[in-house]
């Protein structure tokens, strides 16, 4: 792997260099939120120390700098996902808000009683509940692509579920609970063949491998800054310009208008029409810094590291007695969800925590996935570019400790 040295990468993340509970921290919960490199932390500090002002309105020098930083971040995001035009990048709070935005603008305009919204059994609640709400508001029907016992989508079921009433397909690119990588390009091709637009939840994808929205062909793509080593409270909705331009506004307020009288409001152009109020300026600046950090490492290198470590971790965990992997898709990203013998995931989590190992336990905001696998919860270790084989080895030792306590 040229130019990728995980030891050096770790040096960029100050939070990793601490002891917790008297042991070196082992952070295996990046699918929940990722840690931040010094470059991102510095960008936030620099913005507040030098450039902070409101954007798009001031004539003064600071406002110019802040506007440049904010719009520069938009261009950085465009480049990162290879969108055609920076106007196709809408800054939002995160993936959740991006999906709600599409459901409440595009959805409210184009989806009515008896129409169908197609999602999958493996969606995060963020890609279920906004559609459920839309269905309750409009009388539309929520349809679901099933998952098989490996945690892969049943692709044979897809064509029959894409009906003449389907108005949108909303699908995750990587399952946060199972790690399954979904062939969203192929799904988009099939949906488009029937004239159905596609929204992709990329929250767990952009951090692990290169994403090219033009190549995927999807109409909307949503992701969060905090899972890709950027700040919380900033995220992105990519939308094809033709669609965004035809969509009604989301929230009302300053910056999203061209003119306001008490009788009439003229809305601003995209993307500003969807960014009411003072935006999360430092968040956008921090996100751009995270992207530059990833670009410097090279997303191909990141992908290779994550792939290699996932293979190592899968083998290591499967050798732990009584461990059953939940989600064994042929193509997976850096998530290992599992059950350990008869031990409840929360007890696993507590014992690992005392060993300084952070994992997530619970339903991972994907209760329909838990229902499919008939488990109340799982333990989930998730890997990122700063994780090492030593982290995996520590996890395995921790799991043996759990078995010892519960023998």
């Amino acid at each position: 792997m040229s130019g990728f040295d995980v030891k050096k990468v770790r040096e960029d993340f100050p939070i990793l260099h601490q002891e917790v509970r008297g042991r070196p921290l082992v952070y295996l919960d990046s699918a929940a939120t990722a840690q931040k490199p010094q470059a991102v932390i510095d960008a936030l500090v620099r913005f507040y120390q030098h450039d902070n002002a409101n954007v798009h309105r001031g004539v003064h020098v600071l406002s110019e700098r802040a506007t440049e930083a904010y719009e520069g971040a938009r261009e950085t995001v465009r480049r990162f996902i290879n969108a055609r035009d920076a106007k196709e990048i809408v800054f939002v709070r995160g993936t959740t808000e991006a999906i709600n935005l599409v459901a409440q603008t595009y959805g409210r305009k184009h989806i009515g009683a008896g129409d169908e919204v197609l999602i999958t059994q493996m969606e995060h609640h963020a890609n279920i509940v906004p559609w459920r709400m839309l269905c309750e508001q409009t009388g539309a029907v929520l349809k679901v692509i099933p998952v098989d016992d490996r945690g892969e989508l049943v692709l044979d079921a897809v064509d029959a579920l894409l009906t003449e009433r389907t108005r949108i397909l909303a699908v995750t690119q990587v399952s946060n609970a199972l790690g399954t990588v979904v062939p969203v390009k192929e799904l988009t091709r099939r949906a488009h063949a029937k004239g159905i637009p596609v929204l992709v939840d990329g929250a767990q994808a952009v951090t692990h491998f290169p994403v090219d929205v033009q190549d995927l062909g999807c109409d909307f793509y949503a992701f969060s800054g905090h899972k890709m080593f950027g700040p919380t409270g900033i995220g992105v909705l990519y939308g094809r310009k033709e669609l965004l331009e035809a969509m009604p506004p989301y929230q009302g307020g300053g910056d999203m208008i061209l003119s306001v009288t008490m009788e009439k409001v003229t809305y601003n152009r995209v993307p500003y029409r969807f960014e009411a109020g003072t935006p999360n300026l430092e968040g956008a600046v921090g996100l751009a810094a995270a992207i530059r950090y990833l670009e410097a490492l090279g997303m191909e290198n990141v992908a290779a590291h994550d792939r290699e470590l996932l293979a190592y971790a899968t083998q290591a965990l499967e050798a732990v007695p009584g461990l059953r992997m939940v989600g064994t898709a042929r193509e997976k990203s850096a998530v290992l969800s599992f059950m350990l013998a008869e031990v409840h995931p929360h007890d696993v989590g507590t014992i690992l925590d005392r060993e300084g190992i952070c994992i997530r336990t619970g339903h991972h905001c994907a209760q329909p996935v838990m229902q499919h696998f008939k488990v109340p919860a799982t333990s989930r270790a998730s890997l990122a570019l700063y994780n090492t084989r030593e982290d995996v080895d520590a996890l395995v030792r921790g799991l043996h400790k759990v078995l010892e306590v519960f023998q």
Partner: protein
Amino acid sequence: MSASDDLKDLYQEVVLEHSKRPRNYRVVEGATAEAAGHNPLCGDQLVVTLKVEGGVIKDVAFQGQGCAISKASASLMTGAVKDRTRAEAEVIFERVHKLVTEGPESVDVDALGKLAVLSGVSEFPARVKCASLAWHTLRAALEGRGEAVSTE
């Protein structure tokens, strides 16, 4: 205290034993009250059934799924409140609640009897809800609130 001492306090033998073989894991026949409890964060769910006669809890049982702490706490609870009056059960509830939130220093541990094994929970703030779920559900059943109790 070292990390592993904390763990030993939380997962005491008695706790592990009760979680593996919970007592009164059934539905009370001819129950006069019941309530369901749910911890939405972990997905823990249990149902407590009771038979109260003349103000005394004549029988109490639970069923459900959860972690070792929540199962052990429910199991220990059924033993502790059986044949107690409502008022006595309420006093025990308050003591256990204090024990798991504030620690053993804040309560008369001797008065707790077997329930004292839950003292380790206070060192694990994330697990207080696990230990409390059965108790909140019991209280709801005693107060005639049959609807699901949530720890959130």
